[in-house]
């Protein structure tokens, strides 16, 4: 799959045609992956929307029995999970996949195969979630998966395990996406494109992925602990010392930033739409970016406002009241900037602009009604009522979905080369806006109605408002059919769009619609003033001929291994369903796929002179490893936070030496520290060109890592023989899950090491080719650092 440019479109040579299934299974091109994300997320929108309509039918009138309480709870749970995790963010990242490289002047994302793998993990994770309906019962605990509702004794169904497995796959996908976008935006900006010149959408995505980097590992840790509780019998969330409060902290540490993770891409899209349709730059764009960053930081300090009614320390609730009010301030600036842009601009009320305006209006209502919840006194009354339901739907659906639909209309001509039907688009907006407000505004008035109840008595007086909301739900839901009909029909009948139908200012409008597979025939270069120049003197904003021409770019756009690896991971997480021989075959296929992935002759696009401040001196892969390790800090940080939480509340925690053998722990510490020395010696040998030194050091590292795991397994066996098992209270839970997660990391490191040794034996990694050894070392030393803390915490104190 070689791309040779030089003035002609060689799409057919690098990718099969669009009607080929092979293309969509094996593509790694960012635009294809973007379309896959958009289409798949729209499927999940339809599925989750259908569940919402079932709920609205049930609540249409008092004492209704359309759904059983169990079915209603399942609908509530899966609706929330699908909408938030499988529709909203992936939909936004469909646009990000398609347009970020175009907007920053790159040929693709930094790691195209990782991008493809990320999509397939996402798809299989969603399939796992949908499958829960066919396994005897989907989760029926609410999207927050509150403990102890998720405990086996309350939810003795496979569905929750499957949903948790789906979450694990999804978070793996998110981690890959996060690393990919951070490296892409930091390292692959077109020459001269300083961060300050970037449009708002890439800025919003950069901040969003930074938040995802730190938020999702918390959910990963919580999900692993939940799975362990349900399958191994650990007691993190079933014991009073852990329980609901522990889950609340872990979940909302992820959950509140997640609100902004969903919202920021929408703000970025509105920030791109507004200048186009008002013919003026975004008012105060610098302050908008600063506000997004400020809100992102504060968002990690507000999670406790979801726990005001849990009886936590009043001092802490005051802290969270302050931070919650503080987080609303940056959004004031953002909203005012957007309104000012309209006020000062020459507005063209096209469909994307209408959705952008609608989004701002609805977000204002959603934001203001949320500030009430920062007050502990008010929160006691409003928590768990339909006020909260209305508030977050005005933010998530009104603020985010409306903007994302606006984005779909905005970029549809660019993606397809065709215009949609403008009249139908406007009707869609009007019906959506009316339907939305009919659906959710009555819920503000239902502020005494508890959420998540399956039916209500006629005497409550809630009937008429619920009927109104249900009618609104159907108007809103069915109006989306207009969107699908419009976009599908326009694929064939729409007028040709041309490269820039909206007269947009950002870089994607400088290339043909749809863009060629390699994006830019002539790579853009930004001048010191932020003006775009092209090597051939043509383009968006024509300037003097300058810049780089990439007539000899050699890039790959197809790989088989991403989908194979994702499929293997999916099947592996379903392993309990399969007999042992099948499991062994799956593992073998996984090893083969990993090997194939490593051996794949795949060339990611490179552009010389790309802007990469502030990481000019670090290669993209190395920066990727470091970024991944930053997320790992949160994963282990949450596990250790849970350790401190349960230990501080558990009387009779084993004293040093009483359960865990200090000598065994110390020996393993010496082993792992020594392996760090051999790993760094391997790097030194590789750099100096000593093949013997390299292979010897790598083999020593392998032997030491294997010895660590051997000792660890012996220790576990002895502990089990002495009756200290997974079910031995919170000390057992914390010990086995924390050290087990660490052990899994050691094992993963050894698998990578075997591959590196095999390649080193063939003479690789010497002198300037040492980077793989260095990257492995970064990971291995991190694993060592984690153990440096686990040893004293479990064995010495």
């Amino acid at each position, binding site marked *: 799959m070689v791309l040779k440019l030089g003035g002609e479109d060689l799409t057919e040579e690098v990718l099969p045609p669009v009607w080929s299934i092979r293309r969509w299974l094996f593509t790694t091109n960012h635009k294809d992956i973007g379309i896959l994300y958009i289409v798949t997320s729209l499927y999940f929108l339809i599925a989750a929307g259908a569940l919402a309509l079932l709920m609205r039918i049930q609540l249409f009138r008092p004492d209704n029995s359309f759904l059983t309480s169990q079915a209603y709870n399942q609908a509530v749970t899966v609706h929330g999970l699908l909408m938030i995790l499988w529709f909203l963010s992936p939909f936004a990242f469909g646009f990000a996949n398609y347009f970020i490289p175009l907007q920053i002047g790159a040929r693709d994302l930094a790691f195209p195969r990782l991008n493809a793998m990320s999509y397939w993990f996402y798809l299989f994770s969603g399939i796992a979630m949908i499958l829960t309906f066919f396994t005897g019962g989907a989760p029926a605990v609410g999207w927050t998966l509150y403990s102890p509702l998720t405990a086996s004794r309350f939810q003795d169904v496979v569905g929750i395990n499957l949903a948790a497995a789906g979450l694990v796959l999804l978070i793996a996908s998110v981690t890959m996406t996060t690393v990919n976008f951070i490296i892409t935006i930091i390292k692959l900006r077109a020459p001269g494109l300083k961060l300050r010149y970037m449009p708002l959408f890439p800025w919003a995505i950069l901040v969003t992925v930074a938040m995802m980097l730190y938020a999702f590992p918390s959910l990963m840790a919580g999900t692993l602990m939940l799975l362990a509780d349900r399958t191994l019998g650990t007691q993190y969330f079933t014991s009073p010392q852990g329980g609901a409060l522990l889950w609340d902290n872990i979940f909302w540490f992820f959950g509140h930033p997640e609100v902004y993770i969903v919202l920021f891409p929408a703000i970025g899209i509105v920030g791109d739409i507004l200048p186009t349709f008002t013919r003026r730059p975004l008012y105060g764009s610098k302050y908008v970016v600063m506000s997004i960053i400020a809100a992102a930081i504060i968002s990690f300090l507000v999670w406790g406002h979801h726990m005001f009614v849990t009886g936590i320390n009043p*001092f802490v609730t005051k802290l969270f009241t302050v931070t919650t009010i503080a987080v609303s301030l940056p959004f004031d600036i953002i909203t005012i900037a957007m309104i000012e842009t309209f006020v000062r601009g020459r507005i063209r009320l096209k469909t994307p602009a209408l959705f952008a305006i609608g989004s701002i209006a609805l977000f204002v209502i959603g934001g203001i009604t949320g500030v009430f919840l920062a007050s502990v006194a008010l929160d006691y009354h409003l928590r768990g009522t339909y006020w909260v339901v209305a508030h977050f739907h005005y933010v998530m659906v009104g603020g985010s979905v409306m903007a994302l639909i606006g984005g779909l209309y905005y970029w549809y001509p660019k993606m397809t080369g065709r215009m949609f039907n403008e009249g139908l688009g406007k009707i869609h907006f009007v019906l959506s806006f009316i339907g939305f407000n009919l659906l959710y505004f009555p819920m503000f008035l239902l502020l005494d109605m508890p959420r998540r109840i399956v039916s209500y008595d006629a005497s409550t007086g809630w009937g008429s408002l619920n009927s109104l909301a249900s009618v609104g739900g159907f108007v809103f839901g069915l109006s989306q059919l207009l969107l699908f009909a419009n976009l599908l029909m326009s694929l064939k009948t729409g007028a040709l769009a041309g490269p820039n139908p909206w007269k947009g200012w950002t870089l994607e409008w400088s290339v043909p619609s749809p863009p060629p597979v390699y994006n830019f025939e002539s790579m853009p270069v930004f001048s010191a003033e932020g003006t775009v120049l092209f090597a051939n003197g043509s383009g968006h904003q024509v300037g003097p001929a300058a810049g780089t021409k990439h007539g000899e770019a050699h890039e790959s756009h197809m790989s088989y291994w991403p989908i194979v690896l994702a499929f293997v991971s999916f099947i592996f997480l379903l392993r309990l369903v399969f007999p042992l021989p099948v499991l062994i075959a799956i593992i073998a296929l996984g090893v083969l796929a990993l090997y194939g992935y490593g051996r794949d002759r795949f060339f990611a696009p490179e552009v010389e002179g790309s802007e990469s401040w502030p990481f000019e*001196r670090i290669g993209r892969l190395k920066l990727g490893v470091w970024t991944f390790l930053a997320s790992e*800090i949160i994963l282990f*940080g949450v596990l250790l936070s849970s350790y*401190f939480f349960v230990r501080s*509340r558990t009387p009779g925690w084993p004293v040093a030496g009483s359960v865990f053998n200090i000598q065994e722990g110390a020996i393993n510490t010496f082993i792992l520290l020594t392996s760090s020395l051999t790993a760094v010696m391997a790097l030194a040998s590789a750099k100096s060109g000593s093949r013997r030194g390299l292979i010897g050091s790598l083999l020593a590292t392998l032997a030491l890592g294997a010895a660590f795991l051997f000792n660890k397994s012996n220790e576990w066996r002895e502990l089990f023989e002495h009756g200290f098992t997974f079910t031995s209270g919170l000390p057992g839970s914390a010990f086995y899950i924390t050290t087990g997660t660490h052990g899994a990391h050691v094992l993963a490191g050894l698998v990578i090491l075997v591959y590196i040794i095999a390649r080193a034996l063939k003479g690789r990694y010497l002198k300037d080719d040492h980077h793989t050894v260095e990257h492995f070392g970064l990971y291995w030393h991190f694993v060592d650092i984690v153990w440096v803390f686990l040893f004293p915490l479990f064995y*010495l104190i």
Partner: protein
Amino acid sequence: MGVQVYFAVFGALIGATIAELLIIGQPLAAAVIVGSIIILAGMKAVLIALFYQHLKDEPRPLASLLLAGLVLAVILTTISFLQVH
């Protein structure tokens, strides 16, 4: 970075681990023992990061990326602890 530095750091890591093992046997207040061991563990982690991962030679923003994760983990731990004590 010279190989001697790697060995010197290794010596410090082993020494700190031995110190951890020796401290737990001393007739000191629990808080002193716990505090000393945590500080020693932190020192070991910093040594590995700076010299084996070569973080000291990397741009400052990279350290910020990692430090942000560490700070957030500490905040979560501290606030969670304060909530119930």
